[in-house]
């Protein structure tokens, strides 16, 4: 036993080191979402223009729900991706909807005028909706299928390949004759 312990004990750090090495491959910024696969929590919020918009009104469309803020630099990076989505997909199929996070309408308006784009953004005072979606920073985007289920959550700025592949697969799944 003494002989076995002699070479066994120096090997003990190895599983610990393996665990730590595995930990280094995980990002502390990206935390698992608890609501993937569930129905998106409904909300009825005011748009920047002052109208009321409820998420349930968008039933039947694939929705890209984008939490953003004018002070958020990665949000500027992904802005052209969202703009391209509104150009390349018809609004009947795919709706891009912004939710303003910890920001004021005036700053958001200036942002949209500066960087372009005409899709709707709703205001979320008190961050009730952000909390309902488990948002902890911006940008965060949720992809909802035509039935309103959360198919995917993107933490961090969107890229066109990611948006396109996710939206295309959701459109294919909701095409007439497929399931439903």
């Amino acid at each position: 036993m003494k002989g076995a312990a002699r070479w066994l004990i120096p090997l003990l750090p190895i599983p610990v080191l393996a665990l730590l090495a595995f930990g280094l491959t995980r990002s502390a910024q990206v935390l698992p979402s608890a609501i993937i696969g569930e129905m998106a929590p409904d909300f009825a919020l005011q748009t920047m223009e002052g109208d009321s918009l409820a998420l349930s009104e968008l039933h039947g469309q694939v929705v890209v729900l984008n939490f953003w803020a004018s002070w958020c630099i990665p949000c500027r990076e992904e802005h052209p991706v969202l703009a391209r989505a509104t150009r390349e997909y018809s609004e009947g199929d795919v709706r891009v909807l912004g939710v303003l996070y910890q920001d004021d309408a005036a700053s958001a308006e200036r942002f949209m005028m500066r960087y372009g784009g005409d899709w709707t953004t709703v205001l979320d005072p008190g961050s009730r909706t952000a909390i309902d979606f488990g948002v902890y920073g911006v940008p965060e985007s949720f992809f909802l299928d035509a039935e309103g289920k959360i198919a995917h959550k993107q933490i961090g700025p969107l890229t066109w390949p990611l948006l396109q592949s996710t939206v295309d697969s959701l459109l294919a799944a909701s095409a007439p004759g497929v399931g439903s």
Partner: protein
Amino acid sequence: MLIAAVMLAADPVAAAPRPQDRELLSPAEVDHLTAQVAAQLRCPVCRNQAVLESSSGLARQMQTVIREKIAAGETPEQVKAYFVSRYGGWILLKPEPRGINLLVYLLPAVAVLFGGGVLFRQMRRWTGSVESEQPAPEPPDEALSEEEEAWLRRQIGSAR
């Protein structure tokens, strides 16, 4: 309030909140329960802080949500469950002792026991209660040679 507390403690069925109990919550009690829940939730922005301590905008808004839910009649457990359902288990500062989270609670105890055991074994060796693996070296029992003794006297003499 004390009588109600004793009754609730004695009868688990009565422990489930009934609508009329909620009218008993004074603003001070709402504050207290809100702080209690906020101290157990992790601030999603400053993740080493409790929501109660964090000054981030989201944490303050979470406190408002907590307060509203408590005032509306939800129990602290229900409020915590709501946040866990939205954010995931990491929103609790103390991980639920289930599944792999058990490692967080067990590993430190195991490490202390293991280290303590190694230390105990070594200390017994050091104090000589256990025969060590090699026998202690025998002290030489020859007297110093003349050369060695003369050298020694020189050393001692030069030190004075």
